[in-house]
């Protein structure tokens, strides 16, 4: 018995030594990033694919989540270095004293023609306004985030009472099925899932809340914590630099088949549909005035009790 | 005398159909009890006396032969026949009070008010000496008292035949004597047919009109003895009677001889 234990111990030590020897001695630093598998993060995967991160010595390890409201807890808990989140979740976290920092803007609404974030319903449902949604259900990826906030704002703007609408949480990839199977009456989708869903004749668009309410709104963002920024400042700078290069390539190559195959890879949807729409431009920096407008909307909807000091939340890197 | 309950060439084999394949509990037993008779059946342990009684109760069918009650074959537990269990504690309903236990056979009697039925049960409890314990639960009573509840419950069913399966073997000697006297009182008052199964020869002789002796492996009826002692029986004087002692001697020898034979056979 003792001999077996000794030999197992020896084997273990040997394995550890071997793995240490084989691991590239601190050559590529791992960065753990939580993402949502949607179009918004395509430039990230472009940057990974084109080696922009490897060139500066970091390796991106991605984990999918359902949204910023789920990614940020992981970030705060230390499971991630950077999380894809949204402006609303970031401000809510700051309000509660969780020291988050926005390091880069990811999405922004530029033009209604390239807006791929509609509210979709079944064609035969007859829903055309927020008033029609009273007593019915609308799917959002998570509650208390930017999608939820602007859905409520749209309901109000089109004559409905958001308190009379039931908001159900459904992950983006499952929204189409949930709609078709009548588990929900409406869904606020993002690309590529919105594009795929609209190929079905049974589904139709009701509105583009972001474009209708606040053109230029800053939606998605890369978020990290003050702790990570203090511990790994160089890594963060390299991430943002690599990300920006990815954005630039993305903006130039929005009809490139290579892009489509990259998006298919991480979102697991059919790339061919992406050819049929014009993809939106990705931003290179945050717009503080836009974020301030969103903040006011949050205060109006009682998500925030008072305005926050944006200079403490939006890092100079993002501007 | 017409017979009340009779065993007509009754054979019981467990596990198998033939005498060679299964365990023969008893073989070709013919025995009968007359109305209002007190019949005792004695035999060594494991000779199948309880099985015999269960068949009389309709709880188990014979493999061959039949049990007849008033001339009709017994296939199911017949009305008017009550089996009193050896393990009275397990037979009483722990979730019911004493009086509710006694009420059990009477519940659902059509045309009679519940209050009247309860009064009848109280009377039965009085007859067994447990009137003040009506509202207790079985687990609050001693072994002897629990057996008396079981007897009261059996009485409530107004049986024409009462089958007693070693009912007093699990209590101490003094309680046993009290219960035996109680049983005789009730039997004399109600005049039901009583068939008692016991391994206690003295108990059999004390209580019964006749004693049937079963032999062991294969169990068969060895002999039936007339007790012939005067009634009412008394725990002291009857037990010192010369005939009592003679019967006791004879029956015990009969039983022991069987055991000796049994030992010799191994």
């Amino acid at each position, binding site marked *: 018995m003792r001999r077996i234990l000794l030999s197992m111990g020896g084997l273990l030590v040997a394995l550890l030594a071997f793995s240490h020897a084989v691991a590239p001695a601190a050559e590529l630093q791992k960065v753990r990033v939580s993402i949502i598998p949607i179009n918004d993060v395509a430039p990230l995967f472009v940057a990974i694919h084109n080696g922009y991160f490897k060139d500066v010595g970091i390796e991106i390890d991605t984990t999918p989540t359902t949204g910023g*409201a789920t990614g*940020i*807890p992981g970030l*705060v*808990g230390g499971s991630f270095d950077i999380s894809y989140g949204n402006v609303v*979740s970031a401000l*809510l*976290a700051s*309000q*509660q*004293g*969780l020291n988050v920092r926005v390091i880069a803007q990811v999405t922004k609404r530029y033009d209604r023609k390239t807006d791929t974030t509609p509210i979709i319903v079944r064609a035969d449902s007859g829903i055309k306004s927020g008033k029609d949604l009273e007593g019915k*259900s609308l799917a959002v990826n*998570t*509650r*208390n*985030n930017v999608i939820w906030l602007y859905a409520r704002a749209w309901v109000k703007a089109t004559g409905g009472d958001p308190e009379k609408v*039931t908001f*159900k*949480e459904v992950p983006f990839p499952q929204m189409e099925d*949930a709609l078709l*199977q*009548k*588990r*929900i009456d409406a869904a606020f989708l993002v690309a590529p899932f919105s594009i795929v869903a609209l190929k079905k004749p049974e589904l139709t668009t009701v509105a583009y809340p972001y474009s209708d309410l606040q053109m230029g709104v800053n939606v998605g963002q890369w978020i990290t914590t003050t702790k990570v920024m203090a511990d790994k400042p160089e890594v963060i700078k390299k991430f943002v630099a690599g990300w920006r290069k990815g954005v630039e390539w993305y903006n130039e190559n929005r009809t490139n088949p290579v892009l489509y195959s990259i998006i298919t890879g991480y979102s697991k949807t059919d790339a061919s549909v992406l050819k049929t729409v014009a993809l939106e431009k990705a931003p290179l920096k945050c717009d503080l005035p836009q974020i301030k407008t969103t903040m006011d909307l949050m205060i109006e909807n009682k*998500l925030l009790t008072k305005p926050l000091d944006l200079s403490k939340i939006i890092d100079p890197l993002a501007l | 005398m017409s017979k009340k309950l009779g065993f007509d060439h009754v054979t019981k084999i467990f596990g198998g159909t033939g005498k060679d394949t299964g365990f023969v509990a008893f073989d070709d037993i013919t025995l009968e009890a007359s109305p209002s008779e007190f019949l005792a059946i004695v035999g060594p342990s494991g000779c199948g006396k309880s099985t015999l009684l269960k068949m009389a*109760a*309709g*709880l188990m069918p014979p493999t061959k032969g039949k049990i007849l009650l008033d001339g009709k074959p017994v296939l199911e*537990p017949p*009305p008017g*026949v*009550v*089996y009193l*269990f050896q*393990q009275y*504690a*397990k*037979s009483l*309903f*722990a*979730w*019911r009070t004493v009086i509710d236990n006694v009420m*059990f*056979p009477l*519940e*659902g009697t059509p045309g009679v008010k519940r209050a009247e039925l309860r009064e009848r049960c109280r009377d039965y409890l009085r007859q067994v000496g447990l009137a003040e314990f009506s509202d207790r*639960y*079985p*687990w609050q009573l001693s072994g002897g008292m629990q057996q008396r509840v079981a007897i009261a419950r059996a009485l409530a*069913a107004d049986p024409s035949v009462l089958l007693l399966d070693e009912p007093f073997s699990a209590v101490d000697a003094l309680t046993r004597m009290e219960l035996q006297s109680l049983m005789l009182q009730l039997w004399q008052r109600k005049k039901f047919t009583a068939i008692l199964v016991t391994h206690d020869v003295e108990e059999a002789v004390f209580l019964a009109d006749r004693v049937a002796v079963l032999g062991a492996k294969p169990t068969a009826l060895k002999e039936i003895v007339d007790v012939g002692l005067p009634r009412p029986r008394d725990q002291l004087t009857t037990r010192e009677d010369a005939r009592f002692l003679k019967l006791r001697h004879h029956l015990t020898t009969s039983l022991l001889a069987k055991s000796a034979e049994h030992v010799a056979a191994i």
Partner: protein
Amino acid sequence: MSQRSETLNVNLWGFVSPVAVLCIWETAGALGWINPILLPRPSQIVLSLIELVTDGVLFGPLLRTIALFIVGYSLASLIGIAIGVAMATNRILYGLLEPLVECLRPVPKSALVPVLFLFLGIGKVTMITIVVLAAVFPILISTFQGVKSLDPVLLETGRTFQVSRLRAIVSIILPASLPMILAGMRTALGLGLVLVILAEMLAGEDGIGFRILDLQRSFQIRDMFAWIFVLVALGGGLMMLFGFVEQRLVPWRGKT
């Protein structure tokens, strides 16, 4: 009566360990050993809890959760006991149902939730079904085992008094199996509550589970914990209530 004080003593001792945990937690927080944002101190949580009460926000969701639980649990009890008795007393039914029961029983019911959403939609019916599915199996199994392990003397006693099958089930089998049935129902209590909360988180429109998730989404950790405390109190309260009921229903347990 000594019986009553016995029960009381046991209950008092039961409070000691949770109180000890709370004290350690509070001290750790006060000494700065834990991040107050991620894990607030019990004293702060209690303050949030008091706010919930004074704002009148507590009772709506609490009653909703309790209502969902009661409906699901009652249905599960009725179905579990009925099927358990049926399977134990009827060979054919047993043969038909046993494979189904054995397949479904070991599956953690939370795993069945997505399937149920697909087939039944995301509404109240589905939520009740989830709770019923979670709670029915312990009750069914305990009932079945309780009936099966009944002393045959009890059943033969019934037979010698010529009781009908129905009367045997109602007056003998059910009361005699009650201790085992209640044991199953006790297990089902915890399981049912867990799945009520899960169902509320995934598909509810309000209730304790819904609130906990919602507050987590907006990072209001302290209020989230306040609701968690409410949930713990609810679970503990239900267990205590169950204990009292059990004592009254089966006073003979362990005493024959």
